């Protein structure tokens, strides 16, 4: 095993080792059990609730939860718009960056509001420090907290003795932000700052290079933002080139930290479910399915990147380093491939290499990661996506054992199936329709100038953009000229639909199920905590989510792969 692979193994094992106790902690937070951080957080929470006049003990049904969720999201949207458009005269703007024009502010606000962080600006010149911290970083916390709170509602609904009252949304939300996201980000930010990521409110620094030129180096309160950007599966970077930037991700150690953070909470949320419901085996089955899917994507990607680009190898250039085009030498091919897969299976979207330059197989794996969008997935929302597939799998396998399908003691009937199918449909619908319309426009007007590359790779660029939007991922296949009205508007619509419907759906299903009569388990009941059921869920994800994209992938990365490798051999 070479060092690169050992690095990956270390990264993965470290993630797992941290996620296990974190999961236990998260379960305690959501079930309001004592933790050793209570003395610190309880006063702050009390202050919040007293100031806002919220009664955190008032129980809500699923509809009230959704109303609360959508309302605060709308308030944040207005707030973000206001800050971005007025940042020119607001404080903390040492570089004198101007206020954003309305369309860009709209795009940016939506993009961060939905936890996607698709960026059509460059942080160095587009945002003031005030916007970076008060708007962007704020949204990175609260949108991650929103997803986690929604997941907590669903967790609560899965308990045995639950009725239609599913806890208080604001309580879950504040706890997610304060007790989970904040401490992790705090530790991570310190680690990053000590390794060279800037954390200052001073403006650009002047530096003299070895050639004697004076260059201006952008800096700012980056460490704290990078921490939450990774922790909350946000992905929107402080600097334009994200974690490939030497200040955003200075060395292999910070890369390790940042990459661990990508998977940490999504993984811990699964273990938290096990502790929360006292169904650890069930959580391990979910973990197993996610892990299998993750490895199915990771192994080909890493292998393909480490083998390098056959066209370049043939020229005799750097054959031993793998495919290094668009990658940072301090990370290498394997760690870049690993990051590429982790950032796409979760809805993170931060990058430490240029995804467009990955080999076709690695690109296909990244696309698949976002198309399935449920192998770990975004904080909170990853489980919500997975929940839909569980419902579908329970339905089919429930019939297969000769009983009306039940999940956690509740019958799954027509209404729940309708919602589940709608949510499951949405993802392929948004991705394929968006790509199809764009392809149509390109066909009509080949001179439109959107695509950085012709042919299959150009197709992948379009497919990737919509996939990234629909998965609320936010990473981009560079090369696409995406700052045009068509791309801004169409991806904007995709972003909103793809964020809120997949939250509303699972919360509604869980709420409806919770209000149904609980049926005690017996020998004829389908057990959901078995490997067999895990296989079933995996099959549903594979056939419904992955295979629906097979024709599209065929014309994009697969055609590219077969052309590239076919022509070399």
């Amino acid at each position: 095993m070479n060092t690169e692979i050992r690095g990956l193994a270390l990264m993965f094992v470290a993630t797992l080792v941290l996620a296990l106790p974190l999961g236990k902690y998260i379960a305690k937070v959501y079930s309001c059990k004592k933790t050793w951080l209570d003395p610190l957080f309880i006063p702050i929470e009390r202050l919040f609730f007293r100031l806002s006049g919220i009664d955190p003990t008032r129980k809500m049904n699923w509809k009230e939860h959704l109303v609360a969720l959508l309302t605060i999201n709308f308030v944040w949207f207005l707030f973000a718009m206001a800050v971005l458009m007025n940042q020119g005269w607001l404080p903390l703007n040492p570089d004198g960056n101007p206020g954003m024009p309305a369309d860009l502010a709209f795009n940016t606000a939506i993009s961060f509001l939905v936890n996607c962080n698709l960026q059509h600006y460059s942080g160095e010149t587009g945002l003031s420090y005030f916007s970076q911290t008060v708007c962007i970083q704020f949204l990175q916390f609260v949108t991650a907290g929103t997803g986690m709170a929604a997941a907590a509602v669903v967790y609560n609904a899965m308990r045995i003795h639950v009725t239609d009252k599913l806890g208080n949304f604001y309580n879950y939300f504040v706890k997610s932000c304060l007790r989970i996201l904040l401490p992790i980000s705090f530790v991570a930010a310190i680690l990053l700052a000590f390794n060279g990521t800037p954390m200052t409110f001073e403006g650009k620094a002047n530096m003299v290079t070895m050639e004697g030129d004076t260059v201006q180096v952008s800096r700012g309160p980056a460490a704290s933002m990078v921490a939450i950007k990774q922790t909350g599966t946000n992905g929107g970077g402080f600097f334009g080139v994200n974690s490939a930037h030497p200040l955003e991700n200075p060395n292999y150690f910070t890369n390790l930290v940042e990459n661990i953070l990508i998977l940490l909470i999504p993984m811990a949320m699964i273990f938290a479910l096990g502790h929360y419901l006292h169904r650890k085996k069930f959580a391990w089955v979910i973990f197993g399915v996610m892990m299998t899917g993750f490895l199915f994507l990771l192994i080909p990607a890493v292998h393909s990147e480490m083998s390098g680009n056959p066209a370049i190898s043939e020229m005799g250039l750097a054959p031993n380093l793998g495919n290094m085009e668009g990658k940072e030498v301090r990370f290498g091919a394997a760690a870049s491939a690993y990051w590429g897969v982790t950032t796409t299976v979760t809805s993170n979207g931060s990058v430490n290499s240029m995804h467009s330059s990955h080999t076709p197989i690695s690109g296909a794996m990244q696309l698949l990661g976002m198309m399935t969008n449920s192998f770990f997935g975004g904080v909170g929302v990853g489980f919500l996506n997975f929940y839909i597939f569980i419902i579908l799998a329970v339905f089919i396998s429930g019939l297969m054992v000769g009983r009306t399908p039940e999940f956690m003691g509740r019958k799954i009937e027509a209404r729940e199936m309708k919602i589940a199918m709608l949510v499951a449909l949405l993802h392929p619908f948004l991705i394929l329709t968006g790509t199809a319309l764009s392809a149509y426009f390109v066909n009509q007007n080949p001179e439109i100038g959107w695509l950085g590359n012709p042919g299959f790779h150009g197709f992948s660029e379009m497919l990737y953009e919509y996939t990234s939007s629909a998965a609320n991922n936010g990473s981009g296949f560079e090369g696409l000229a995406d700052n045009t009205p068509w791309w801004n508007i169409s991806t904007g619509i995709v972003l909103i639909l793809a964020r809120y419907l997949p939250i509303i759906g699972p919360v509604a299903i869980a709420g409806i199920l919770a209000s149904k009569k609980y049926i005690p388990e017996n020998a004829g009941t389908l057990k959901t905590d078995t490997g067999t059921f895990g296989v079933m869920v995996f099959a549903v994800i594979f056939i419904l989510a992955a295979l629906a994209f097979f024709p599209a992938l065929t014309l994009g990365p697969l055609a590219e792969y077969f052309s590239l490798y076919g022509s070399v051999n």
Partner: protein
Amino acid sequence: MKNQHTGLFQKALVLEALKQAFLKLNPGQLFHNPVMFLVEICTAVMLVVSIWTLSGATAQGSFGYNFAIFSILLLTLLFANFAEAIAEARGKAQANSLRKAREETPARLESGQIINSSQLKKGDVFVCETGDIIPGDGEIIEGLATIDESAITGESAPVIREAGGDKSSVTGGTKVLSDRIKVTVTTQPGESFLDKMIALVEGASRQKTPNEIALTILLAGFTLVFTIVCITLKPFADYADSPITIAAFISLFVCLIPTTIGGLLSAIGIAGMDRALRANVITKSGKAVETAGDIDTLLLDKTGTITIGNRKATQFYAADGVEESVFIQNCLLSSLADETPEGKSIVELAKAKSITPRSGFSLQSAQLIKFTAETRSSGINLPDGIRIRKGAFDAIKNLSEKAGFAFPPETEKRVRDISGNGGTPLVVSENDRVLGVIELQDIIKPGILERFQRLRKMGVKTVMVTGDNPLTARFIAEKAGVDDYIAEAKPEDKLEYIRNEQQQGKLVAMMGDGTNDAPALAQADVGVAMNSGTQAAKEAGNMVDLDNDPTKLIEIVEIGKQLLMTRGTLTTFSIANDVAKYFAIVPALFMTAIPALQGLNIMGLTSPESAILSAVIFNAIIIPALIPLALRGVAYQPIGASALLRRNLLVYGLGGILVPFIGIKAIDLLVSIFV
């Protein structure tokens, strides 16, 4: 009639179904099945394309190829229609054979007027005498008769039906063997249970069951996904300069949407009701059959279900100082004239011990003492003055103590032991002196223990309902292996128990016959009324068992499970098939324009045309290939839910992935000879 094991495809039925298969092409009818309706639209499109190519267009490929696709799609539709039609035909044939007997029988009204049975209205009163065929369903209001119900139940032993009580119902088509009864008609013409059942099977009033609706939504969802996949493929292909023919588009679409389960879905539902009917159970709705599969708790009457009818003598225990053969001799004499099943069993047991009545004994000369509620004993007075009595412990004890005899302590202990073991002691005395005690035991039906184990593995809790005292009840419950019992049960107790179980979220099934069972039958999620039961009971339940067989409940639960499983497994199979179909068609779509994609043609299919034809042909013939399975149902095995899922996932999931790979490849080899 019972369990007629006719083949799945009788000639007459097949012919009728073939005709129906064409009639069902009517879009108005197909509209209710979204998946097949889409296939019909695709078929129509292909017909237009075929005609278009015939008129000289070349862009869409040859006429032969297009027409072949059209024909295969049409076949797919016909196969699916045939599946539904054959299920309907079988159900109808079964129901008709039940109905035939009761049609066109003359009915003699009270007034003496004779009308046709079909003219009988609810509330009419008719009279039947020996040899008459009963013209319609009704309730006896006067008289008693022995009736041959073999036309309905297949059971040749005549049964007694009488006014009042729980056995007052008569069924049309059965024959009166003796006596005379007056019957009031209880159903309007065309509204008997059987009529309702036939209507259910025929589809006119067939409503989709809740599970069927949910499954239809799932299938519609899958269909929509694949619709999106296929429509968006057009601009994708244009972008890649790889034009796709209409035939290829339609083939991809039809192959991907779940036509297999879509085509078989209604056949599966009808077949479920057919199976119930074959088990001589009339269901009032398809939902009831489905619910039966979900039952958590089964209430079973002890007598007839768990134990064989009545108690039987199992042992003679003579008192100290009484010779055993003498004791048994006395037992035998006391029971010779006893017509009760217990009495007969004593005679049998005595004979088995080679004891015969002493020589010179003649029944005629003896005086028989009948059992009365007052004496609680029966017996015989012999001509020589000997009085033999047998009866309950305290009754005989009274007798003997009055006569001045002490009750033998060892016998008293034996009496207690017998009671403790769930038996019933019968004490026998000669001239008021206690001779010993006979042990009567309930005989548990052979094989019932295994059946209950089977039920337990299915997750069904069994509850025995009995009028016995708790001690006896517990003993029998343990011996038979039921999970719970209701002793000294009154009808209210059953109702209470059912409510209690339902409160905990469980579904309960029970069987009953009496009017006082009606509330419980109505409360139960699956209430099976015996056909011999009162009209009230039959109205209250949602199924009627023509055989009056209490163990039928177990069968019904399995039929329900089988129905759900068949749907689930065929859905899995249908969807799993898509993997192979993708790999057959997608490379075929683009191989001409992008030769590098030959690498995706992992099945090595000959040409794009043959690949597409093979996939469509496979898609079509898998439907008739699975009709037998749909009609017969996937066998239920009580091996626990997880093991069952594993097995079905292996057979229908993995099988569903592999079979089309092999099938399409094989068809391609054949097709490539012609193309």
